[in-house]
């Protein structure tokens, strides 16, 4: 109950270095500049107000990301987002064939295709791929940030990647001469 003040840095020191990355994530969630700015602004104000309740020494990035996400989900844009992403379905993905969309992609270095595929993914899938592959969060950090069990992190990630591969495959199919 009587918790001492955070000792590993002020809010400013902890939060401002994450600004650019949180904005990037906010944009990927909200999909336009004004909404992303509103989302980041509200996240920083909420996090600042709640900073006294942040446990020093625990993961600040996962903590503030969770605030960003909850803020997004209660925003107008977030209300339209379906939160389910087949978490119940635990079947592992099939092994890929040798000529995978990814291997063709590597040669062609088509960042636009990857971006477009990310945009087309349902939000929960886009979010978990970004946290894992772009933010390079560990499964345990992702579990804290999203408030879901580790097992769900793994199955959701696996399904998200499968969906991503399917989208890439469909796009590559569409670009064939």
């Amino acid at each position, binding site marked *: 109950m009587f918790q001492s003040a955070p000792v590993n840095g002020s809010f400013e020191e902890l939060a401002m270095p994450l600004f650019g990355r949180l904005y990037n994530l906010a944009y990927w969630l909200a999909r336009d500049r004004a909404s992303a700015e509103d989302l980041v602004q*509200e996240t920083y104000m909420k996090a600042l107000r709640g900073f006294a309740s942040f446990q020093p020494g625990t993961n600040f990035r996962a903590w503030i990301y969770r605030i960003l996400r909850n803020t997004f989900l209660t925003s107008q844009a977030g*209300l339209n987002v379906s939160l389910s992403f087949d978490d119940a379905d635990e079947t592992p993905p099939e092994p890929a064939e040798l000529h995978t969309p*990814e291997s063709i992609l590597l040669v062609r270095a088509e960042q636009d295709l990857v971006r477009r595929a990310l945009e087309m993914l349902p939000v929960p899938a886009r979010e978990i791929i970004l946290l894992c592959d772009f933010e390079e969060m560990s499964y345990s950090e992702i579990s804290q940030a999203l408030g879901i069990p580790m097992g769900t992190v793994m199955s959701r990630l696996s399904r998200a990647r499968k969906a991503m591969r399917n989208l890439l495959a469909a796009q590559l199919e569409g670009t064939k001469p």
Partner: protein
Amino acid sequence: MTCPTNQLDAFVDGELSPAALAAVEAHLQTCPACSAHALAQMQLKNSVRAAADAYQPSPEFRARIAAQVATKQRRPLHFWLSPALALVAAVVLVAISVPLIARHYAHERALSELLDLHVSTLASANPVDVVSTDRHTVKPWFQGKLPFTFNLPDLTYSPYTLLGGKLIFFNHAPEAQLLFSFRQHRISVFVLKSATSSRDGVQTEDGFTTESWTAGGLHCIVVSDASAADVHALADLMRSAQAK
């Protein structure tokens, strides 16, 4: 070993225990399908890493938030108490009345959050969802968006102007925020249906005045940096509109 397809993600993400890692690596030596899959996963991960870094905040936006963080940052609460004193204090606090304290903090949190909403509205590029031409454009706009309705005062002969309204989410319920102007000040009026722990009354914090009241099952909270008297005058106009 059967193909550890469900472990290939964890392998690529560096999340396997040393024992599991050794087993998967040994398997990959002998299984072209799993090797191809793991390679593909790695390529996908690299592609995402490169492609996802797509959006940069404008320098103005960064500066604005940095300034807000710097000015709003307050010292966290310090309790300069020895552990023994803390225990005594805790026992006394519990004995006095936990529910009372809990209500107090819930109230403070609710007000804090509304104050945040007011501040972010002012800083927002699009502060309102519906721009007011008069009170008859704002009220109907909320129809179908809110599970309740409310009246707006006639401001013709008052110094207040209704700028517009905004749908907000408070305690996970849709609620109304109205934005007024008064000279150079902006005033938010929150009309809430959800059971807030907000107590009625006037409070000031960080130079902001809030005035709250409950009428007809709705909680209204006026928030502004205008003077307490000016906040009160608008609160009175809102109160009489609700009483109609």
